């Protein structure tokens, strides 16, 4: 009898509800470094003080596998109530009916990546872009100023590369997930190319503009160093790379530990030197459609996306901008970032982006390792993406 009682007790304990109280909402986010995590915790405490009947449980994700964890949480029917998403991911979750609809009066261009079928599924939390960082000392050392055209830039790259084996013209990102395509697309867009048609229904990677952009990018890689983003930025800060493509976090590091050389942030430009286009990205906040605490979740998203809260996060991160327009730069470098952000675009939202992104990165990598010409490789990638888009359309009809 005692054994039965013991077994019953074990069963009771293992099956008892150890879940959280009904007032707790789960918030999954990506800010876990020593600068930003305290700010996230402070913002959450402020929110809880403002809403004493709501508790927030914060879970940290990493960019290395955060997307996968979110996918698995939805597959396991246990998603967080509120989640931070990369701007390219919203359509993927929204198209599968997994996100709650939202409303916002923020500028339309900031909401565009979070739209699917004319409905808004996420709110921008902070915005960022990619920009060119030039080492002015290295440029001066090879008798060049800041390049005005693509030909200038290629010449600068080649001259720096000839300085010796410890110097590289360009920082060419190796095929790191979620990163490589953001380095290449500004060149593609600045050359008049597109990844997808305006309505997102077909690929445009086989256009002459896209092919020329890839050929040009490969030329830069030939006189550059192929490495991970982290190491490329280390090399740049050591003064061994002429120019790299990076985000605002590099500017923060350069300000915190000023290098021994002068540097300048320059917006992307077209081959002839006109204003180019860069990658528009950012962090978005979304709510799970199946959340049992929709109202509380909406309150948290509304709170976190307030201008001052978003600004607090940007200040802690040392980069990024609140999604409220009328941005003002505190110095010439931040002003350059703002100008670049104003000339940044994102791809038409598509649920297949994670797949398409990988196809683009595979194609760039194949070209970097000379597994075909830029034209052959992009034509193949274009066909593959079109096949996926077609297959998705057929599945939707079914």
């Amino acid at each position, binding site marked *: 009898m005692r*054994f*039965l009682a*013991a*077994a019953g007790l*074990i069963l009771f304990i*293992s099956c008892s509800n150890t879940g959280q109280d009904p007032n707790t909402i789960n918030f999954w986010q990506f800010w876990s470094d020593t600068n930003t995590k305290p700010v996230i915790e402070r913002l959450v405490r402020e929110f809880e003080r403002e809403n004493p009947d709501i508790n927030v449980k914060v879970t940290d994700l990493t960019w290395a596998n955060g*997307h*996968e964890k979110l*996918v*698995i949480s*939805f*597959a396991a029917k246990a998603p967080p109530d509120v989640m931070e998403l990369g701007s390219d991911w919203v359509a*993927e*979750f929204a198209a*599968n009916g*997994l996100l709650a609809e939202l409303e916002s009066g923020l500028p339309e261009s900031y909401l565009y990546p979070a739209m699917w079928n004319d409905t808004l599924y996420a709110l921008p939390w902070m915005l960022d872009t990619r920009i060119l960082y030039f080492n002015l000392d290295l440029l001066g050392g090879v008798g060049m100023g800041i390049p005005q055209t693509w030909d200038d830039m290629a010449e600068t790259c080649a001259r720096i590369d000839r300085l010796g084996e410890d110097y590289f013209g360009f920082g060419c990102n*190796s*095929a*790191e*997930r979620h990163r490589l395509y953001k380095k290449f697309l500004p060149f593609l867009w600045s050359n008049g190319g597109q990844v997808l048609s305006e309505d997102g229904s077909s690929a445009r990677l086989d256009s002459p503009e896209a092919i020329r952009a890839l050929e040009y990018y490969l030329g830069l890689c030939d006189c550059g*160093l*192929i*490495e991970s983003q982290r*190491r490329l930025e280390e090399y740049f800060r050591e003064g061994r790379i002429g120019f790299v493509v990076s985000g605002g976090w590099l500017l923060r590091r350069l300000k915190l530990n000023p290098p021994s050389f002068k540097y300048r942030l320059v917006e992307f430009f077209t081959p002839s030197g006109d204003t180019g286009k860069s990658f528009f990205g950012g962090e978005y906040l979304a709510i799970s459609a199946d959340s049992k605490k929709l109202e509380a979740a909406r309150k948290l998203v509304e709170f976190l996306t307030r201008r001052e809260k978003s600004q607090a996060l940007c200040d802690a991160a040392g980069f990024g901008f609140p999604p409220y327009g009328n941005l003002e730069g505190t110095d010439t470098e931040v002003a350059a970032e703002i100008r670049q952000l104003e000339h940044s675009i994102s791809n038409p939202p598509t649920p297949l982006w*994670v*797949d398409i992104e*990988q196809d683009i990165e*595979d194609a760039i*990598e*194949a070209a*970097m*390792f000379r*597994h075909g010409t830029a034209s052959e490789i992009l034509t193949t990638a274009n066909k593959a993406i079109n096949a996926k888009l077609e297959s998705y359309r057929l599945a939707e009809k*079914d």
Partner: protein
Amino acid sequence: MRKRTKILLFATPWIAYFLIFWIYPLFYSFYLSLTDFQFLRGDGRYLGLGNYVRLLRDPIFTASLANTFYFVFGTIPLTTLIALVLALLIAEKVPGHRIFQAAYFIPSITAMVVIALIFYNLYSRGGYIYMLFKLAGLSPPANGFLQSEDTALWAIMAMDIWVAIGYYVLIFLAGIKAIPTELFEAARVDGAGFWRRSWNITIPLLKSTFAFVIVLNTIRSFQIFIEIFVMTGGRPFNSTLTTVFFIYERGITRGDIGYASAAAYILFLIILIFSLIQFKLINVKRTI
């Protein structure tokens, strides 16, 4: 009867765990492998063997299989041989053998993520291994070992051999300890030296340990993942893409879980066949 009930009751939690977390997923993933189930969509159509046919025609999957075979056949002989020699030397109680024993084992208990990050830097342009090659007058790849299709997989294999040796040294040592000491003493009396004793006594009597080490190492090598995830992500150009990473990438990243399940079953069959062949070749029957 009462005793059996007690046994069953005590075993119930484990049996429940085994059924829920091992047996059910095993069968459910086989069912998924016959469908085009997508994680986020949450449903899938029955495809029969469609995923298996698609996999065999997928050049990336076949490349991942080839890389995995390279990895398995490139690391196992060296790992086993080096571990055996080191175990024989340690068993001889050479001066400082306990320090060696601990030192060899340290990589095995260090988190693979940490080791992989350290080796990522060592293999990079300007890293210590890269610079050693330069000092030796060799020409390392311009962008470092992990950024070259020709060297990335070999670099990871070399690291893996270094990591795995310590664990197998311990297993071989345990096998050597189990050999009756009288045999060694008699051989010594007859004038047999270290190599003669090792060749004629130790190695033949380590047959079952060999089988265990090789099967264990084969299964482990076929499932190589963390090193790839941390160091290369299967790149450059799929030259380090292993089958388990392929499964992860297709199933978890892209959410094509039906396709990934089929790949997992093909890998399962390969490991099963290899394990059976290895047991047969080494002729081990219930000895381990």
